[in-house]
């Protein structure tokens, strides 16, 4: 299937894999790219050398384009931003802010830039800075979330900018993809479903949590500190929610309570202290399977639904 997104990125199918911190490494990214989508390595809070190594590893595992997701609040953001330009990574996605200050450097390195945006104003601002497309991510997604839903955000961003828009948040299958096209997007970004791919190196306990989840299994915590995140309800999130609601509990201690919790979930499989980030569609993810099968299933369902439909996507 050809859309504005597949043409822009030089990929076969309009599916991007979310840049999940502590989860999206060279193994998952290369598998998704080999399947015809766009695999993405998360630079999370890592230093430039760690990310460079993952990029080089990924290049030995696929000859297809892949991307790096740069978290703009990372303490290493400046060095990582320079490094991806040196490595001439094909695609960069960004999260947690406005990447305008890096756009010139990345464009000169031939990098395609797709910031994740949670409002129309941010979409307009990054369009003006010269990015290639935006990823409009609704609050159904896992991890850091905005208030707007995908259903409300995507068409408003589509109307606000003239560059291509990718829909993210709440998409797990072909139905979600077709819905995204109907809202005016030209592709989707999917995180949670790829988390259970065979090639994803996340802890077995994390995958179990996703596979066992149902529709109401996730909750949002962290609003008090201005960094709301969606995760599977666990001992950890319930405790966090209680502390967050307690106005006598200081912000600094609440912040400290959260430190390292994602690593504990993703790497250690610690079900007591880990924070298992996941989107609201976790309840639709029922089996661990190869990334190629996930991509094939989504495309097969979407293409069947779109038979005879002529949309300009």
């Amino acid at each position, binding site marked *: 299937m050809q859309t504005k997104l597949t043409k822009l990125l030089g990929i076969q199918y309009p599916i991007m894999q979310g840049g999940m911190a502590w989860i999206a490494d060279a193994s998952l990214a290369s598998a998704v790219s080999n399947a015809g989508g766009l695999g993405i390595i998360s630079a999370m809070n890592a230093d430039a050398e760690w990310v460079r190594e993952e990029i080089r590893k990924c290049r030995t595992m696929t000859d297809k384009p892949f991307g790096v997701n740069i978290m703009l609040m990372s303490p290493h953001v400046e060095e990582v931003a320079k490094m991806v330009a040196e490595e001439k990574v094909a695609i960069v996605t960004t999260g947690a*802010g406005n990447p305008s200050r890096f756009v010139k450097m990345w464009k000169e390195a031939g990098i395609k830039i797709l910031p994740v945006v949670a*409002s129309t104003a941010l979409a307009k601002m990054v369009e003006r800075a010269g990015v290639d497309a935006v990823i409009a991510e609704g609050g159904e997604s896992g991890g850091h979330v905005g208030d707007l839903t995908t259903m409300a955000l995507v068409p408003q961003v589509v109307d606000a900018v003239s560059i291509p828009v990718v829909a993210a948040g709440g998409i797990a299958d072909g139905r979600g993809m077709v819905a995204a096209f109907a809202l005016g997007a030209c592709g989707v970004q999917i995180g949670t479903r790829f988390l259970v791919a065979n090639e994803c190196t996340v802890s077995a306990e994390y995958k179990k949590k996703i596979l066992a989840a149902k529709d109401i299994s996730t909750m949002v915590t962290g609003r008090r500190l*201005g960094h709301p995140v969606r995760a599977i309800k666990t001992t950890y999130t319930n405790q966090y929610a209680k502390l967050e609601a307690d106005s006598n509990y200081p912000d600094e201690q609440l912040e400290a309570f959260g430190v390292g919790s994602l690593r504990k979930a993703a790497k250690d499989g610690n079900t007591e202290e880990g924070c298992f980030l996941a989107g609201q569609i976790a309840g639709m993810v029922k089996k661990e399977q190869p990334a190629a099968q996930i991509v094939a299933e989504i495309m097969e369902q979407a293409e069947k639904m779109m038979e005879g439909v002529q949309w300009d996507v």
Partner: protein
Amino acid sequence: MTTLEKLKEILSECKGEDLDITPETSFEELEFDSLDKVDIVMQIEEAYDISLGDNMQLSTVGELIAKIEEAVANK
């Protein structure tokens, strides 16, 4: 309309209630989140046809007024 009056209009609209602001009002006490701030900057830029830069730190209303008036003067 003065710059302060225009800002009062933009900030009040963003907050959803009438704000009583002075040049001394700090953005910290107004408690806008990061998306609100992006929205405010875009609205100001469109209203005055100016560019305020992409990673502007907002501290007080008075400082923002100064930056707007400087950008307008340099148009």
